[in-house]
């Protein structure tokens, strides 16, 4: 269903007050009826009192009932002011369902950077190509806050299609992309990152490689050795800090070649001091 058609159906039902059941979310086992979602909370969500509305959004987000989720979807469809939209978006994604993507994509293009940052952040968690497309679009946003949110979300959500634009942002020295890429990195990507020396600001590259080293799930150690050596080539003082952090965070036993390499490099760099 297209955005427009979904909108008409959703809007018409939402405006006349009928339940949309748009979530497609099955009723939770043992869950109470929809009537059990406090009516006053739903009412508060649509009130002009933004503080109360934002609180209601948080409450509905925390509520596992399908009715609570539907109420958030309906409210988002009818348009929420930014102060309410952000908690509503966050709350919606606490209990993700496929129809959320259309609603969140609508807010991913909102004029308010906080709103679209929130939407993009949540979209990364949906296994939907269109959701990931919105994350990638966020990486091209002229507002740094939105790009950072998109990069962080892409890393957290393992959004592979975001790698290429994030590499471009890395070259521009954007740390959020460095961290996001580190989260996305497999051995191939880590080697590609290591090859960026001279093409990327040193400090930013250190962030990317240092963050990879800190990942407990990253390996094998031979690849970490390559990363340690790549960091060792970086003259920026932050390189030594990154290696020191890695040494401190890694147990001495069992012996790891990557840690030993890191120690040798740090000793050499700090030698004479």
């Amino acid at each position, binding site marked *: 269903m297209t*955005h*427009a*058609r979904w*909108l*008409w159906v959703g*809007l*018409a039902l939402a*405006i*006349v007050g009928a339940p949309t059941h748009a979530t497609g979310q099955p009723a939770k086992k043992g869950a109470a009826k929809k009537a059990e979602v406090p009516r006053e909370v739903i009412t508060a969500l*649509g*009130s*002009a009192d933004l503080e109360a509305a934002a609180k209601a959004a948080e409450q509905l987000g925390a509520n596992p009932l399908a009715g609570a989720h539907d109420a958030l979807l309906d409210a988002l*469809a*009818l*348009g*929420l*002011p*930014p102060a309410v939209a952000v908690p509503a978006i966050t709350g919606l994604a606490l209990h993700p369902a496929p129809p959320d993507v259309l609603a969140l994509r*609508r*807010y991913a*293009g*909102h*004029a*308010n*950077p906080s709103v*679209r940052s929130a939407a993009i952040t949540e979209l990364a968690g949906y296994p939907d190509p269109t959701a990931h497309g919105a994350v990638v679009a966020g*990486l*091209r*946003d*002229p507002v740094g806050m*939105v*790009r950072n949110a998109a990069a962080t979300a892409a890393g957290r959500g393992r959004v592979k299609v975001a790698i290429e*634009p994030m590499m*471009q*942002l890395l070259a521009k020295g954007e740390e959020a992309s460095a961290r996001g890429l580190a989260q996305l990195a497999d051995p191939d990507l880590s080697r590609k990152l290591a090859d960026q020396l001279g093409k990327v600001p040193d400090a930013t590259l250190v962030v990317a490689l240092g963050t990879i080293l800190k990942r407990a799930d990253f390996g094998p150690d031979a690849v970490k050795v390559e990363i340690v050596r790549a960091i060792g080539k970086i003259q920026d003082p932050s390189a030594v800090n990154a290696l020191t952090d890695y040494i401190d965070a890694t147990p001495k036993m069992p012996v790891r070649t990557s840690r030993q390499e890191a120690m040798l490099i740090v000793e050499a760099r700090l030698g004479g001091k």
Partner: protein
Amino acid sequence: MRQLLRPLAVVVAVATLGACGPKQAFRLSSDENNAYALREALASRQLPASPTPTNTSKQPRVFVLTAGSPKTIVAYDLAAGNVLWKADADVQSRIFVGGDFIVALEGKQIVARDQGRGAPRWKVDVDGTFIGVAADAERVYVVNRDGNTWWLSAYAGSSGAELWSADAAGQLGAPAAHGGVVYAPFLAQWLTIVDGRTGKTLTRLRGIDEQISTLRVTSQVAYYGSKQGMFRLDERSASGKRAEATYGQVKIPVHLERTTYGRDAYDPIQQSYTAADRARVLWSSEATTEGPMKLTDDGYAIHYFRYVLGFGNDGELRWAYSHPRVELVASEHTGYVIAGVAANGDVVAIEPRTGAVRARKSLGTTAPVLGATFDADGWAPSSAPEPVDTVGALVTIVRDRDARFDRVKELAAGALAKLPGAQVTSELLAVLADPRAPVRLKDTVVDLLVARRDPASLGVLTQQLAIKTDYLAQTEPDALAAVAKAIAGLATTALDPAQVTAALAALQEHLDAPNTSSPDLVHVIAAMAAIGGGAERAALASHLLLYHADEDRGSDPAWQKAIVDGLTAKPGPQERVVLRYVAQDARSKPGLATMIQAAIGPD
């Protein structure tokens, strides 16, 4: 200043003439506008039956002056494409062409050169101040000022022997000559026609409602007039009035403000080659016995620096020619082609009716060309015309980086916009995308795009919408408001439904884009509403709901009006539901509910 001084000059002349008695050839009181005398004078001219060069070989030639120390005269055979000769010469005036000689002021002397070889044939000193020179096939005519007396003198082209001279106590302008008569402008009010052989005044014309300060002479026709317009010299000239003579005024676009019909005979600067030669009306005319001057092919051209623009009598642009890289420094209507010489020595011949290039030649000179005199009446190159590329020429003009021509660019953009087709729209959009294009030109192009209403442009306009804000690509939408306005302007035309769908999708992307500014958004909404036919309503309704409670966008009165107008033009049931919801929503921004209620009325 000149205009102010002329009445004074007349007064001075009156006083001076009164003291000098009747010996002077040029007097204030004299027979004038005499139809019989004029008829006789015209009949005495020995003019060819068809446009023909003055030179005895009757070959089309151009005599070019190039820069240097000394300067160089280059004689060039246009028909053969050969340089005839080159000669160094300290030329201080324009060059004039006789039968077997050319003549110009060189240093302080009038110097006639053998036209076949370029060697000096004779020289005469100029007493006092040089005013101007002219030549016909046999004689040279010189005007100079000595004290308070102006002199018109004739010399034999063959020997330099002085044949006669006539004095005037009032200002004489630079003369012109052909067919054995010399035309001498007098006190900016009269045109005296003198027998070139004897110096006898044949008749004189007084401009009753037009100053006479400009002369143009071809092998067959003499024109006289001013910056206002030109008379074709014929028997009807005896009236002295525009309405009763063969008088013509062409429509010179305001963008070509420096354009004149010819050089000012009273301006000493223009008696040599100047930039004024690069802004000329070029025309030929047909003999008539009634009505205004009838221009050949009902049109004319304007040479304006590196451009030549063809117009119809109605002032509508017919064609455009843009000379590559350099300016045309001289031009002449030969009767069949417009001939031009460029600063780099290029020679070009352009078909006056279509703008097709009929010939391209090169003088092969490395020194810059300062100016040129054509003796090429009747020149009609036999080569096939090149395809006319008016769009290309107009585009070249519009894209010209030279800030001197900003007004010309506006003219070209206007002309371009009148041509149909997607390519034209693309070119106009390219102007908007050009960061170096003048703001005023961009404003003009926006207006033209809106007024254009060319349904074939929708695809191109849609393509333009593909450019979006992209931090990585470093792009911003180009002229989004202008494109949207242009699309909205197509609403009343027959559009391809598939293209409308594509345009709506592209517009919606900007509607939904976070960085579309409110002023742009207003036009995007209007465009969607204009062409959408209802298909746009869901997107507009979604947009209204998304921002109706938004502190920034929702509070913008321009946005409020645009979105309400867009949804209330022909609201269906669904739009009414949405509009009523927004109107009743306590969160809706001030003004929005009122506007909706005013638009759709009570429940």
